[in-house]
């Protein structure tokens, strides 16, 4: 579904933060992206969620050459991608509920559908009581769960998550992983940047490893559902 060939990327006039990146993401695959801080994980994800264009190389996106995709077509592609930002990027003046509802509103969904859907998902991530709270009054872990709910509410074709379990306890981390694995089962392609070695091993999915802008690939199996850790819907 997505392929990178010799992709390089730089910020402005700086040196390359990614160089000669080559990999493929099959439809419905599940990958971890690991690497030390500053390795270029966030930069690679920015390419994946179409916030930046590469400075060289070839990217195919949903089987189209990204270089040939007009700017006007990008919003439609972006609506098929869910993103969990490392720093959450919630809208501060909107409640948790309204933040999660945004992707549905952008898609043009009906008000009633939105309400049911958002409530259900927020309950599922354990935020039923905090639904109408502003991000400023939420803890780091709570914000992270709102961000994840916002990323998955649309059942995206591609889910990109940047350290999505960095601020929650191990039990909640597993619960959120379960959510990603469930989403993957219904066909969503998933890429999760993480430096939680234990979590990566528990799921057992293939790993893309970045170091100083260079990538190595480690094969893995089908993602294992960490169900037993307690994920009652």
């Amino acid at each position, binding site marked *: 579904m997505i392929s990178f060939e010799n992709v390089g990327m730089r910020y402005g006039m700086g040196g390359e933060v990614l160089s000669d990146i080559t990999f493929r993401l099959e439809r419905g695959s599940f990958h971890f992206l690991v690497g030390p801080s500053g390795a270029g994980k966030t930069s690679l994800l920015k390419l994946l969620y179409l*916030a930046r264009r590469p400075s060289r190389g070839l990217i195919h996106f949903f089987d189209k050459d990204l270089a040939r995709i007009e700017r006007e077509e990008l919003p439609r592609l972006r609506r098929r991608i869910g993103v969990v930002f490392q720093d959450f990027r919630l809208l501060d*003046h909107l409640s948790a509920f309204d933040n999660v509802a945004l992707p549905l*509103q952008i898609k043009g969904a009906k008000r009633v559908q939105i309400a049911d859907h958002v409530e259900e998902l927020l309950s599922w991530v354990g935020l039923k009581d905090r639904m109408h709270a502003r991000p400023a009054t939420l803890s780091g872990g709570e914000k992270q769960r709102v961000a994840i709910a916002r990323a998955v509410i649309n059942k995206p074709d591609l889910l990109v998550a940047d350290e999505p379990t960095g601020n929650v306890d191990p039990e909640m981390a597993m619960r959120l992983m379960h959510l990603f694995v469930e989403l993957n089962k219904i066909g969503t392609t998933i890429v999760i940047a993480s430096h939680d070695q234990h979590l990566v091993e528990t799921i057992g999915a293939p790993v893309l490893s970045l170091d100083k802008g260079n990538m190595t690939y480690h094969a893995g199996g089908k993602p294992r559902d960490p169900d037993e850790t307690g994920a009652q819907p």
Partner: protein
Amino acid sequence: MNLPFFGETPVFLPKDQAGDGLLPWVIGVMLFLTGLATAMGLALGQGLDRWSEGLATTLTVQIVDADEGVRARQTEDALKMLRATPGVAKAEVMADADVMALISPWLGDLPIDAGLPVPTLIHVELDKAGVVNTAGLAERLRATAKGARLDDHQAWMASILELVAALRLLLLGIVALIVLSTVAIVIFGCRAGLATHRDSIEIMHMMGAEDSMIASAFDRRYLLHGLVGGLGGIVMAILVILALLHLAEQMGQGLLTASLPGSGVLWWLLLLPVIAGAVTMGTARITVRRALLELV
């Protein structure tokens, strides 16, 4: 808030107008000034039309001669000749008292029989403007009565017309300057607003919101700023003009009243807030779209 005309778009900007709270006030002041200038321009035009139309259908004939007997005879001849001229509706001698009233501002109040040789004035009304060849008429008048001079008001009307044209140009210039500064202010305000909401805009953009959807949130906001500020300013301008009209009426000064806009003009001023709304909205739209194009 969703205006039907914009469709249902997500509200992603804070409701409080952080950053551009001053904008409606500035637009209000601008529209106040525009309102006054526009009203004056329109009134000048209206007054001038009324007034020059009146002048174009009247002529004045002066009979100047120191000897009262000669003057009376020449007046008779001139009247006869004028009344026989086709296109002349009416030719009448103005009463001495009226003539004195006309010249009293220059000479002070004089008794009518002060012995001063007052010129005889004949007031001529035409059927319609331009029906009589004034140059030909002047010549025939002089042939009929040696002391007769025809005044068709052209000379001084031309200079007044010039003055009024200059005034209107000046007012137009003022309005143009105000519109330009308003656009500049809206651009600055909009940029500041964009900076304040940069993060929200970027997030919406990355979630796949179309540029048009993001821009329309600003459109709405700036349309409202323009309408509300504009309406405030124009209402103030109308109140000021009404107050002036009232004062002028009390003073009974015909000239002052004539140079103030009639109340019919005031209704037209209510169009200005709509224009202000359109201008602010258009400016905001262009500014926001430009900024969005900087995102991938």
